């Protein structure tokens, strides 16, 4: 018990120190800047020069802590991981050997195959479900309650969601009463129960269901907001022209919010590329369910081969890269219009 109290106390102290530290840094550095490059005593050219100098330095004072953290924890590791991917377990330079190993490795090929499957299925189904639920919910008085409930899985951890769905997929031998919903339905239809998690390809699909279940709420919220931006007059005009609900949905709503659909799609794609917890908790890659993130974790923390682990990380990074570049270009375009 006393070590728990000590731990809580330690956390509180850390918060206090961190807050005091950041406040002291920002206030202190600005105070110093104003004191030593202040314009009270100077005149003429000197004053302008000091003003300029101050406004040159101040942004960097604001940015310094954040840039420091970003450099140490994200920028440097990315470069270092890239470098490590060319070294073996004992830090000997091996060129592209790790990459050659990866593409020849059966488990790696399995991971690539599964990741492609995940990429094809999860973003499309999550976006489609999100869109359909958004459209339906916006028409009904209880739509907000419905949206809240569909959105709820977003708050649940991947591990928590895995337990929830593992319970749905639970398997008991034929003849026993099934306590998993899926097998209860299957046996209710007169078919034999299945140990779903161990049947290749289907087990991957059932793991994907978990992520679709989580991400559909995200898609729904974003798309629902976009749908509200579709001008009412456009929809009205279509209705007068006699378009039915399906025509309005496919011919007017979808083209109008296409940009948002792409954003949602790419965001979920990135989540899929990084997905780790679900596979780790449900199967740990057994029964042909391996994916890149879990494969990388194994090489890093089970085999302690940082070289090969880094290689797999770099391959995940390369898959994310096109979306990253696209995001940056979009942000830059945004910047131009401001």
């Amino acid at each position: 018990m006393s070590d728990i109290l000590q731990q809580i106390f330690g956390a509180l102290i850390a918060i206090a120190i961190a807050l005091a530290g950041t406040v002291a840094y920002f206030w202190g550095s600005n105070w110093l800047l104003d004191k030593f490059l202040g314009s009270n005593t100077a005149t003429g050219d000197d004053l302008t020069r000091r003003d300029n100098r101050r406004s040159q330095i101040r942004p960097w004072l604001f940015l310094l802590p954040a840039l420091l953290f970003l450099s140490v924890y994200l920028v440097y590791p990315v470069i270092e991981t890239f470098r490590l991917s060319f070294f073996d377990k004992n830090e000997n330079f091996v060129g592209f050997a790790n990459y050659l190993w990866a593409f020849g490795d059966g488990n790696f090929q399995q991971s690539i195959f599964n990741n492609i499957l995940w990429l094809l299925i999860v973003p499309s189904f999550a976006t489609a479900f999100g869109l359909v639920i958004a459209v339906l919910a916006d028409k009904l008085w209880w739509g907000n309650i419905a949206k809240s409930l569909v959105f709820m899985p977003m708050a649940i951890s991947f591990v928590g969601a895995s337990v929830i769905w593992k319970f749905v997929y639970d398997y008991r031998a034929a003849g026993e009463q099934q306590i998993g919903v899926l097998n209860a339905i299957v046996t209710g239809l007169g078919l034999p129960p299945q140990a779903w998690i161990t049947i290749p390809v289907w087990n991957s699909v059932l793991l994907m269901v978990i992520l679709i279940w989580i991400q559909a709420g995200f898609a729904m919220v974003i798309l629902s907001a976009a749908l509200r931006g579709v001008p009412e007059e456009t929809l009205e005009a279509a209705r007068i022209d006699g378009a039915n609900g399906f025509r309005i949905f496919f011919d007017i709503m979808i083209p109008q919010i296409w940009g948002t659909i792409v954003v949602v799609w790419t965001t979920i794609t990135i989540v899929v590329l990084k997905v780790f917890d679900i596979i780790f908790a449900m199967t740990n890659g057994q029964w042909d369910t391996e994916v890149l993130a879990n494969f990388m974790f194994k090489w890093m923390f089970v085999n302690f081969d940082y070289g090969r682990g880094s290689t797999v990380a770099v391959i995940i990074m390369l898959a994310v890269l096109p979306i990253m570049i696209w995001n940056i270009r979009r942000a830059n375009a945004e910047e131009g219009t401001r």
Partner: protein
Amino acid sequence: MTAVVDTATDLPRPTTGTPRWAARIDAARIFTHVALLFLVALWTFPTAGLLISSLRDKDQLAVSGWWTALSTSSTQGVTRLPQAGAQIEAGGKFVIRGNVFGEDTNKTLAQFGLSNAEPAAAAAGESLPMTDGGALTVQRDGAYEWVSDTRFTHTRGPRVFYVAEIAPRFTLDNYVEVLTANGVFRSFINSFTVTIPATIIPILMAAFAAYALAWMRFPFRGLIVAVVVGLLVVPLQMSLIPLLKMYNGIAQAFGAEDGKTYLSIWLAHTAFGLPLAIYLLRNYMAGLPKEIMESARIDGASHFKIFTGMVLPLSFPALASFSIFQFLWVWNDLLVAMVFLGAQESKLVLTGKLVSLLGSRGNNWEILTAGAFVTIVVPLIVFFSLQRYFVRGLLAGSVK
């Protein structure tokens, strides 16, 4: 609803009879209701199943689906009667007494029998002749009486098979068990220890940086913004190995075994949260009215004054959005906690604890369901009470 359509379309109203489209619209509306209800049910029932199961009696949970929680379930069991030494002599007869359920008394006996093949040979209250002599009677509450005219001499107690009914029972026992016996309470504290500092520390840092990127002019500003946008999607996997090596290096320099401390994970989460924090806050601050900033500048206020006096208070909604994001993300994280805090029992956070329970108690659903609910209850409370800010943050973070 129909009235709205009428006035909006400006079409001539049909003069007589019910308009035909009214019927069509109603059918469509009913379809909408049903379709949405179906989807919502599909999205809710897995969580509902977990919650209901975690509150059920653990014997019932193991033998019947949670959708039957309100009906009585039946289970089969077996117990061995004691040896001859347990007999007492009463009124010229020899008796062995006891309860087939032992201490467990929430069951009701329906039938019993003496062989595996016939567990339902006699109903409760009836008697069965025994091969070791005498007759056995078992009551509904499980109490049995084995009565014989002659002294018992058996050395191996016979087995009694039974069919018992378990009345629906809801209980918090499973929660008491996971919180006291399985170390979940400790993990609960650990999760808070990790999450609260990791949520608070990045906020001020990100806010200053965001203001600089939104309202100050300086070289490389565009480049820094681009880097932040890029870092938003960099897989965490790229950071793990170098940081682990760095931490271990620092730990060795200080003579420690490894770098797996709370400080390591706070700083890691702080850094991993910064790109989103800066991006969200910068977008929000850039949207604040330019006129206020400019008039404050003309009045001679420095950037520092403008930021602390005006922009920071005005940015409260964005700060709240980010805090909720960061809280949920840190609380729900498994990977970073495993790498930087380790898998040591006393340091496991809730997600890690749940994974370890999945491994060690994979078939004890009473432990898993209650444990899972303990891990998701805090984020659910945060989510439902602050949903507005969460949604706002989501919209600002992805659609621009």
